[in-house]
């Protein structure tokens, strides 16, 4: 198989960036407190250091981009026309359940369930649990195929 990489890319908008800053503030009490904890005596807490650097950059107006890179050829081999259609639908739409996704796509529930699970196994979509329902979600603006 030709060595390829898949990139799932998502750009945060201003609201999402602000919400991220708020989350970091809440987590540590205040930005000053975070700074104090990180800069005092050679902090070696990886998450705290990363949060501190992200907060500093967001405060300066840096944009935020999230990527998931899949090196495994399995991610590419799972593509079929129907699964591409499913991904394309999830890119622009939110659904409450697999059943709802199947209804929107006009396809059989079982086939959509199997396709969704295959895409989840390949790391392309996620499921969010809401009660007993599983909500399939594609957390990306773009899927890029890159030849190594």
């Amino acid at each position: 198989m030709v060595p390829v990489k898949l990139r799932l890319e998502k750009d945060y908008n201003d609201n999402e960036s602000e919400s991220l800053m708020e989350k970091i503030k809440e987590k540590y009490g205040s930005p000053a407190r975070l700074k104090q904890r990180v800069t005092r005596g050679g902090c070696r807490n990886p998450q705290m250091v990363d949060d501190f650097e992200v907060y500093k950059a967001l405060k300066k107006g840096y944009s935020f981009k999230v990527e998931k890179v899949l090196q495994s050829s399995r991610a590419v081999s799972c593509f079929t026309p129907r699964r591409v259609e499913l991904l394309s639908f999830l890119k622009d739409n939110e659904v409450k359940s697999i059943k709802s996704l199947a209804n929107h796509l006009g396809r059989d529930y079982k086939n959509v369930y199997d396709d969704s699970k295959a895409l989840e196994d390949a790391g392309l979509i996620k499921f969010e649990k809401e009660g007993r329902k599983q909500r399939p979600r594609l957390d990306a603006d773009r899927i890029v195929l890159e030849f190594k």
Partner: protein
Amino acid sequence: MQIEKKEYIINENEKIDVLEIIGDDAIKFYSYNYKIKNNGKWKLYLRWDNFQKQPHIDRFDGAGNLVESTQSREKTLKEVVELVNIFGKNLVSMNLERV
């Protein structure tokens, strides 16, 4: 000026969590976190970062405890991905000065 957060999946049991802060066409801050999946959970074992402009490598025990730390030269994501692809899980027990 961009913050890039990446989850670089090597295979189903190994990944690198990446944070790069890029300004003026240069990486101002990076952290590359090599993780292995154990019992369904991702555990951190190695971390390259240049916090406070001091590039170094940290080794963790998989339970969140820092075991060892050493200075290193600046690393790129490409170099770290190559190391992981070549040595895989053996990286965890290698001499830090070699990685």
